């Protein structure tokens, strides 16, 4: 159920994703990420249409890290920032980051070759793990359209996922 994806560009880098619902302790998990005791990006699944969306953002984030050009302080916050269409960091957190009351969460971890980061966060999580293929069912297309400012003209010629992906990959080049 845990998915490890090799980074396309760096042989020593990988992306790990795990989906949860029936979460009982979002607040506690979030606190541990904020104080640095566990490393991960905690995302709201309603805004994630497909793992490919996360892959595109994480690839961008790792590229920024390796070229010493991150906008945020850590690689896991950089993923969240890259995922968001906003250029404002706290706004990106508010929209895409896990909320204290959320019951559903997507955990994203990069460069976790020995699973130590994953083990650390899993020891903390009180919730039920779901297969990643459940992402589709958890996503809210209309919320996604609103956040990414996607209109119907565009959706006549491309799937929603492609509209989202183009915005993530073009974020640094295009001002929305």
């Amino acid at each position, binding site marked *: 159920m845990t998915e490890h*994806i090799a980074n*396309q*560009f*760096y*042989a020593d880098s990988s992306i790990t994703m795990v989906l949860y619902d029936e979460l009982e302790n979002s607040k506690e998990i979030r606190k541990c990420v904020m104080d640095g005791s566990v490393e991960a990006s905690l995302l709201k699944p309603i805004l994630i249409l497909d793992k*490919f969306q996360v*892959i*595109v953002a994480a*690839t*961008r984030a790792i*590229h920024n890290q390796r*070229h010493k050009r991150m906008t945020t302080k850590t690689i896991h916050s950089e993923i969240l920032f890259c995922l968001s269409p906003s250029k404002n960091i706290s706004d990106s957190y508010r929209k895409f980051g896990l909320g204290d009351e959320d019951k559903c969460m997507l955990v994203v971890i990069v460069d976790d070759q020995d699973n130590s980061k994953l083990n650390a966060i899993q020891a903390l999580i009180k919730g039920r793990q779901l297969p990643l293929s459940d992402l589709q069912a958890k996503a809210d297309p209309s919320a996604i359209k609103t956040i990414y400012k996607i*209109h119907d*003209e*565009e959706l*006549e*010629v*491309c799937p929603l996922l*492609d*509209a989202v*992906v*183009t*915005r993530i*990959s*073009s974020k*640094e*080049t*295009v001002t929305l």
Partner: protein
Amino acid sequence: MAENEKHKLKLIKQGAEAKLYRGDFYERPCIVKERFSKSYRHSALDRSLTAQRIKAEVRALFRCRLQGIIVPTVYFVDLDSSCIYMEDITDSCTVRDYIVQIQKENGDSAISQLKPLATKIGGIVGKMHANSILHGDLTTSNMLLRGSPLDLNIVMIDFGLSYFDSLAEDKGVDLYVLERALLSTHPNTEELFSTMMEAYKQANKKGAAEVISKLEEVRMRGRKRTMVG
């Protein structure tokens, strides 16, 4: 691109300013367009010009999408190695190859068969111009037909020379490039260009008259130049 990437990609086109590769971006088939500067000096200026063209291409792809014009999805932009990773429009052929094939197979009836295609192209260019998107290199190789050509799913590509402005003069030049490219690649296609212009007028209602009069001026200048030269 990273060195460990290169061996997984297959070079499909070596141009004067860009190399094209075919490969995968994670689970999806992709095209990698790598730009390089023409000059041998790899100065900071060259690098910044290359970056400007990549950005122009990404921006134009995005603006077209917003207007409902089909273009490849962009997966990754690497300004450090001057690459755009984009969707590979699989199951497609260039408009150029399609017109060549229809003309070869159908002789005299080719033009009437190609009219719906010309109408579609004129409409797309008109929509781009109405939204101040100038392509810069409107040739029949820079338009793909996805799936069955009869469905007229045209995908616009190659925006490396594109820019945004609203001057009728520049739009006239954009159309002139299209006309020259069409007539020089495909014999006896004057009528197809007229069909394109009819559709152009429909799609760019406000601006078309002025743009087409500029096109006529540019044509005159072009003719004078060839007469002198």
